[in-house]
């Protein structure tokens, strides 16, 4: 067995996998990594199935001691990871031995780093997923939100192929505008508000987490339109009573009564997931056809990259 022992938990370290896509109608958030592509790459690097669990490490990393030998990989945010005080690279697999310690330092880029471990994670699952439940966590997914002293067992795989990805990191175009499709209620907002939203600088507020990001800006996304509670998905931008925009993220509630101004294109959601409080974000309108084409292109590129090199 290969064991991860958490000497420090980090700021917010949770288990994430493919999520619970089929239970939206029961009010259960889709969940899963905030940056899906990075989580998949981490799993590929250790020869796991791409939707296996990973640890999502937020801004400040944990301190992990390994008991046994195994293979790990880190992707996403650069939080100055080290093994036994020696810096290690992102986007490549690393062998670790009994007693090795993985630590993190200063956040250099992004917000969320993904740690994959080669093998079969011995963790609780609810509705087919190891992702930390957004409510009743201790009952439904005990152990999925890392606390000091926690231990996670992974049955290591025999495959220990050393892998690396030359990844054109999503973080490199962090400053490009986030593309947004019109939401079902965009036409309920004054045209001037719509224009202002796309012309303005917005900042990710301190009140932001896996459920959603609040935006600080001069734009008030306000409308008098009264709507009846209706479905939401990650990426939806809501106007609220105060006018402060909220972008729904991976653990967002499945329905809401706020007008749905727009929706972030899936191709840009991972980039959104790598943002943290204080970060600047600008938005650009995109049509659904273009958004779907870009998303397909991204998924195809990922598949090509990971399959061809996996052989």
């Amino acid at each position: 067995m290969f064991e991860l022992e958490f000497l420090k938990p980090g700021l917010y370290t949770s288990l994430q996998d493919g999520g619970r896509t089929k239970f939206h109608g029961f009010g259960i958030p889709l969940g899963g990594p905030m940056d899906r592509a990075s989580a998949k790459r981490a799993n590929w690097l250790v020869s796991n199935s791409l939707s296996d669990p990973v640890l999502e490490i937020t801004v400040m990393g944990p301190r992990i001691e390994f008991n046994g030998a195994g293979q790990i990989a880190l992707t996403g945010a650069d939080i100055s990871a080290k093994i036994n005080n020696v810096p290690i690279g992102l986007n490549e697999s690393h062998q670790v031995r009994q007693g090795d310690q993985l630590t993190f330092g200063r956040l250099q880029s992004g917000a969320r780093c993904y740690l994959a471990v080669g093998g079969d994670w011995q963790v609780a699952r609810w509705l087919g997923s190891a992702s930390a439940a957004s409510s009743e966590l201790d009952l439904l997914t005990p152990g999925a939100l890392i606390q000091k002293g926690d231990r996670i067992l992974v049955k290591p795989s025999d495959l220990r192929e050393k892998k690396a990805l030359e990844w054109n990191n999503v973080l490199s175009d962090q400053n490009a505008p986030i593309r947004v499709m019109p939401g079902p209620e965009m036409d309920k907002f004054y045209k001037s508000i719509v224009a202002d939203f796309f012309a303005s600088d917005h900042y990710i507020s301190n009140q932001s987490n896996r459920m959603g990001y609040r935006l600080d800006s001069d734009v008030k996304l306000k409308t008098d339109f009264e709507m009846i509670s209706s479905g939401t998905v990650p990426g939806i931008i809501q106007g609220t009573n105060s006018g402060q925009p909220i972008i729904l993220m991976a653990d967002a509630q499945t329905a809401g009564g706020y007008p749905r101004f727009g929706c972030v294109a899936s191709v840009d959601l991972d980039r959104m997931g790598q943002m943290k409080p204080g970060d600047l974000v600008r938005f650009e309108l995109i049509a659904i056809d273009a958004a779907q084409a870009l998303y397909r292109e991204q998924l195809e590129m990922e598949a090509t990259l990971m399959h061809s090199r996996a052989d």
Partner: protein
Amino acid sequence: MEILPLGDSALLINFQQEINEEVNGQVMQWANLISRELADHTTFVSPAYCSLTVGYKSMHIHFEAIRSLLFSLKVNEFTVAKQDRILRVPVCYQGAYAPDLGSVAKMKDRSPEEIVELHTSKPYRVYMLGFLPGFVYLGKVGEELYTERKDLPLTAVPAGSVGIAGWQTGIYPSVTPGGWHLIGRTPVPLLLRDSHPSPFRAGDTVYFYPIDSSQFSESSIQYDV
């Protein structure tokens, strides 16, 4: 019926925008129909009061293509069998389980017993689940129980609390902030570690029945199918 994109991987079907059983019945018929006929293309089908959210595999099918498929389903609209279930849910309307029963009774100029009688004498429809995992939106309460939300939401509503607000009544499945008037509490677990995460489904009919606090731990939901 109007079909709109909800981002690039989900769509929204809007029905007549009002809260009533007839419209919600249409929502449920379409939810069942789509779950059955388009399972290969969809990732989830999620009913709300008067709309339906459908997740689909945008990697394989464009919005316009799935919209056309949805419109072509229309001919089969009435072939879907209704799946009515009646659930009888135990609620203790006493003491600490019912922190707002007294204030609601005062507000409505009735006795607490009359409020309980009004709340338990009527069937409620599960219009939708949402807001929180497993939270059921039930309606509608009678005119005598209509209330505005509380001015000051409670920061931690206990799990199982049965509340009323507006024309709605509902059950809090887990501890959460909430602004509804809490008139009772059910002992039944509302979020399950099962493959079926909630005892409720949208479209169910629910009756509440009163239990004594001494029976609290041994009461359970009764199903009349």
